[in-house]
């Protein structure tokens, strides 16, 4: 069996843990519980007749007071930077996080996930501006942890890239 480590990063409250819960357990809860440290889940994905076990490291939200431990990213086959399109600041924070990660791991594929698409888009970034930021990533995927929209697709795409 092939195992791949995937790290979820992003500002606090963007829905990283909810994405994992939706993907692993198929559950969504409105209740907000902040992640402390790191929480690890696993799920097997079938890609072109190969079973890939994704070990998903859900790393605590990053904010201006609390950075992330770069050691957690060691050996990761992919990063997922999650932002929330109802919060403009989360995009900038997500880009900062990517840059921090890139300092030590410049070649690891990074997925840009714009979450909470079930809610109305409330940031003032134009599509062009967002597209510019998207260039720094391997792929951009818009998801909703609540409805499950594109969540399975996201992890399938990651599994495919890591092989």
């Amino acid at each position, binding site marked *: 069996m*092939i195992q791949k480590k995937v790290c979820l990063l992003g500002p606090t409250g963007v829905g990283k843990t909810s994405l994992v819960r939706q993907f692993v357990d198929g559950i969504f809860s409105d209740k907000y519980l902040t992640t402390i440290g790191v929480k*690890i889940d696993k799920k097997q994905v079938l890609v072109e007749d190969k079973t890939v076990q994704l*070990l998903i*490291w859900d790393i605590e939200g990053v904010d201006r007071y609390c950075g992330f431990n770069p*050691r957690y990213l060691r*050996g990761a086959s992919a990063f997922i930077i999650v932002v929330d399109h109802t919060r403009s600041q989360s995009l900038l924070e997500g880009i900062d996080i990517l840059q921090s990660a890139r300092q030590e791991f410049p070649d690891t594929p990074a997925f840009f996930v714009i979450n909470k698409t079930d809610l109305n888009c409330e940031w003032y970034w134009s599509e062009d501006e967002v597209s510019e930021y998207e260039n720094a990533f391997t792929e951009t995927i818009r998801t909703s942890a609540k409805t499950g929209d594109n969540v399975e697709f996201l992890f399938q795409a990651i599994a495919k890239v890591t092989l």
Partner: protein
Amino acid sequence: METSAYQKDSDARAMDAVRTLIIGGDEKQIENVVRRNAKGLVSEVVSEALNDRETRDGSVNRVLVPLVEKSLHRSVEANSDKIVGVLYPLVGSLIRKAVAAFLVEFVERTNALIENSFSFRSIKWRFEAWRAGISYADYVATKIYQYQIHQVFIIHRETGTLLNSAASDPSRSKDGDLISSMLVAMNDFVADAFGSANPEADTDLDEIRTDDFTLIIKVGPQAILVAAVTGSIPPDVRGKLQVVLEDFHRYYQTPLLEYDGNTEPFLASDSLLHDCLVSARREPEQKKKRFGVGAILLICAIGFLGYLSFFRLQLSLLMSEIQQASAPAGIAVLDTRIDKGKIVLSLLKDEASVSASDWLTDLGIDVDKVQINSQPYLSLDKSLIAARVSKLVSNYASLNLQQTPEPVLSGSITTQDWNRFRRELRVVPGIGNYPLDTTNVSVITDQAIDQEKALTYSANTLMAEIAALSVHFKTNEASLSSAALSTIEHIAERYVTLQNISDKLSAGLDLFIIGVSDNSGSAVKNAQLSQARAQAVKRALIEAGVEEKGLHTRGIGQMQLSQEDASRMVFLHVLLTQSDESKGIAR
């Protein structure tokens, strides 16, 4: 054919001549060309060629190793400062780990020695160590350690993914994937939170302890070995884990360096990991101990049960003794039983009887072993009635009571005291069955009493005496016992006297003979029985000399009296009616 062969030979010679003209006779031209491109050509195939040759006969290593050693030696000599600078952190870390492992082992052995040095067991162990020909410290270690390695994980250090695992009981093995990742995450956290400023010098977890088990963590360059252990782990087991980790690195160096998430190359490490699943339980000794403790408990239990049985037997004998003994008058034993290590004696006791404790003491029974539950009751036993009368008489100094053969009261007494005495005598329980002869008592009158008053007084006295007498019957019987006939004689004697007095007073005299029964049987039957009892008494009175005139019988059926035995009886009521006046003197 010959022409053809000649032709070929001629062509070959012509080709040689042309080749010589083009590249020269000593192939200098080709050599020059090859030499010009040698670097590029060799660099294209050098790795593959070395690999192929090494695989074929291993000669590459034989050639290269001396060359590399020689080069290294020269390099160390020439650049010793640089090499020391590079190796220092690595060597320092290795030395630290080696010293730490030695210290842990030393401290644990020392602790064990201290704990076991000053006891009988230590002397025994020293003797056994001497017999076995090993050091005391080693023997102590083998005796005190009791442990089991339940599961072993080998984890890729960088990614935290599980490379392989082995469990002593696969059905109880934990989810190794998540445990591996979390352990690496914890290691990262510890390194980040508590690590030194030097990013190259990692601070690694060495051990995680819980109440149930210990996780021993051995960190290598590419892989981490984790053992889940219960019990106290001897130092040599830690050393064994370290050796297994080093072996793993040696055997799987290439797959570890090329690891891309595929765990298949590490499947063959099963046997290596299973070597770690060691345990030391000292079961035989434990069993012996358990047997020893069990035997002691069994002996204690048998002893305790034996004591209980003996004690119970003793109580049973005492209880049997009480049951067989005849209770004194005024004590009626209701029940005897054994409860909570004592004989419980339930009884009815008349106030006038001897105490239950005195009775038991007379029987030679230890009163402390008996719990007495006593309830009061009135006994109609003659001896107790006699005792009550005797007690009453003792209050009157001028009266004297003789109990044998029949109770006779004698002495002189004033009228006032005599009346009081008779009132008190009437309320003595059971007095109806106690025929007290009072004819020898001389009553001293204080004043002259005219004839009529004297007669009336006598009549009242006789009526009171008759009222105090009652005739008792057995259950469901209307026949008269000898005691009943005796009572009837007393009644007849007094009533005949009363008839004489009533004649003198010209008063009417009636005797109501009232029959009563107890509650057993039907109400109709009891009404008939009570009537029959009244009739029987009437007939007996007539036979004893009483005139039939004025005798009235009435059976009033069942009556609930406080003393149930007393309800099977006939009682009497005398009515003396003055002829000229409507006043009646009734008793």
